[in-house]
């Protein structure tokens, strides 16, 4: 049945009819089995939650026990990095004139010539 767009407004009697029908339709009930299933779902959910919580607690405990070791390792790495930085910062000292000359000769002369004349 398709409602006409010009369907007239409801009379008070029709309003009462619809209200009575809807009141009756309201009594829609579900099974006890569904309620039991919902409660089982609740139990499952909280069982899984407790298990996950226990697993997370174990990890936290383990990491808690080694927290000083982790902090020590981190400090060592940081110190090593700092020392390396200091050492490499001091390697680029200025060359003496003789060293400059030697490096210049090494750049422009073929290796074979340097070997023969005993310069290399």
């Amino acid at each position, binding site marked *: 049945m398709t409602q006409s767009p010009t369907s007239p407004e409801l009379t008070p009697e029709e309003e009462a*009819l619809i209200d009575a029908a*809807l009141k009756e339709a309201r009594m*829609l009930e579900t099974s006890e089995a569904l309620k039991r299933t919902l409660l089982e*779902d609740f139990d499952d959910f909280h069982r899984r939650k407790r298990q996950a919580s226990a697993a997370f607690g174990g990890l936290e405990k383990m990491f808690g026990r080694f927290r000083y070791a982790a902090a020590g390792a981190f400090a060592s790495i940081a110190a090593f990095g700092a020392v390396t930085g200091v050492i490499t910062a001091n390697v680029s000292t200025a060359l003496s004139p003789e060293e400059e000359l030697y490096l210049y000769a090494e750049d422009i002369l073929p290796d074979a010539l340097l070997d023969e004349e005993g310069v290399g």
Partner: protein
Amino acid sequence: MSNAEENDEALVRRAGAGDRAAAAMLIERHTNRVYAVCYRMLKNSAAAEDASQETFLRLWKHADRWKPQGAKFETWLTRVAMNLCLDQLRKRGRELPEEEGPEMPDPAAGPDDALFSNERARAIEQAIHMLPDRQRIAVTLCHLQELSNIEAADIMNISVDAMESLLARARRNLRDRLAPMQHHLTGTMSHDAISNIS
């Protein structure tokens, strides 16, 4: 305070902390309503039970941090159920088989009266089932779930004016479908008149 007096919000908090008795009380209070919304939206009892289960699973997941935020718990739960049903309808492209209206025997009635009552109830359910989707949802929320127009409009994401218009159209539609059983609804109609509307 006993469970019967405890409000939903307090029960949700307790259920969130793993209190089984609180969860059982919430289930007892709200399953029929949630199921009714799902059934009337999906028109299929198995799908409605699945959607009810999913609705309560969402509740258990959010229970420990659920906050009212202006809405009643019941409104929130109805919205969850409705959104899940809308998702299902979209995903399945409305391929779910539709069922006849459920049978609801009246325990106070005799055998003949029970049959009569079942036919009447089924006819009413069918009339609701045959409404266009949005009208059926509006009727379900406002008349069957007894939410206010404001709450229902909020759940359906429409204005209150649009909700009132939907309800008016739905009621006119129901009038057209239920007219043959008008006398029966007031207690004097024959069996033949009811069977004519199915």
